[in-house]
């Protein structure tokens, strides 16, 4: 599956009340180009920090589903955050790892995920629903199941290394993104 299509599927499947957080690099760029809306948060730096930020939001906004979307490189960078999410039983988290086995945004260098099963790590950390999907249909079904159930849920999405290098950057400033997102969290969907 092309990563951008996986992101499109995610954004078209989640509810208008759900929030989606995107990690730095092309994952944020692709999400912004595919379906920008005020429930999206684009983390432009701090690779690896996204899942901790998601945990903080999930703790305080228990009525929201918090969909964390990061790559395998980002997820492996801060594996400990998975343990915190599992230990704190953050049931409103759906943690999606778009796994292309590489650091796509910096030239496609190989990541350890090619040989290490991150699903087993998620299970050990206390995630409740865990699966691997390879196509849009199964991603949609898997996401719908986790959105209805109690997490924390983990979906590993196998994606190809293909992406558009000319994808433009997120055109919102960091502060614009923050304010828009915080307003959404406070007031709900428009």
């Amino acid at each position, binding site marked *: 599956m092309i990563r951008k299509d996986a992101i499109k599927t995610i954004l078209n499947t989640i509810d208008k009340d759900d929030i989606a957080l995107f990690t730095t690099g092309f994952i944020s760029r692709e999400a912004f180009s595919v379906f920008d809306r005020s429930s999206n948060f684009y983390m432009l730096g*701090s690779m690896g920090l996204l*899942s*901790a930020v998601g945990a*903080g*939001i999930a*703790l*305080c906004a228990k009525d929201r589903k918090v969909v964390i979307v990061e790559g395998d490189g980002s997820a492996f960078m801060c594996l400990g955050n998975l343990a915190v999410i599992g230990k704190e039983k953050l049931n409103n988290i759906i943690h999606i790892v778009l796994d292309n086995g590489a650091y796509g945004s910096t030239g496609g260098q190989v990541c350890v995920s090619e040989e290490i099963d991150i699903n087993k790590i998620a299970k050990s950390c206390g995630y409740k629903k865990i699966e691997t999907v390879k196509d849009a249909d199964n991603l949609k079904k898997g996401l719908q199941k986790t959105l209805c159930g109690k997490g924390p849920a983990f979906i590993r999405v196998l994606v190809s290394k293909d992406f558009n290098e000319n994808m433009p950057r997120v055109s919102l400033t960091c502060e614009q993104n*923050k304010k828009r*997102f915080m307003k959404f969290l406070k007031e709900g969907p428009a």
Partner: protein
Amino acid sequence: MIKTNEFCASLIRNKIFIASGVPCTILDDILKGVDSKKEITYINAVREDCAIGIASGAYLAGKRSAIFIQNSGMGNIINGLTSFNLIYKIPVLMFITWRGYNGKDAPEHIIMGRKTLNLLKELNIPVKILKNVKQIDGAVKIMEKKKIPVAIIIKQGVVV
């Protein structure tokens, strides 16, 4: 000297809702105190950047938050501060213990003990060295006004 209960009361008065951190011996009584208060949810972080991520997420969800870390862990939050908190303008109250103060401590604390204040200054992060709880009120006001993290440095023996 500040009593732990007085310290915790100040956090509650300042509406700190979420706290996260990594232990330090200087924080032992404080963290037990914070964890015992129903008004504050304390989350054990696996590393200092995890703590600042959690605290920042809490802010995005409309809640005031704090981290508790040892100065040795400051190196683990530099990326978060420079490419997240300081550019998105996400305020977090940072309680940082001062190991290696005055060059007296185990060897692994000596360099950071000397560099702690300068590192924060380099990042234009306001710093207070804790002597009384009113400084916490002041720090929260600065943090809310400037929308950036503010550091409160805790030396050994200041909070008991």
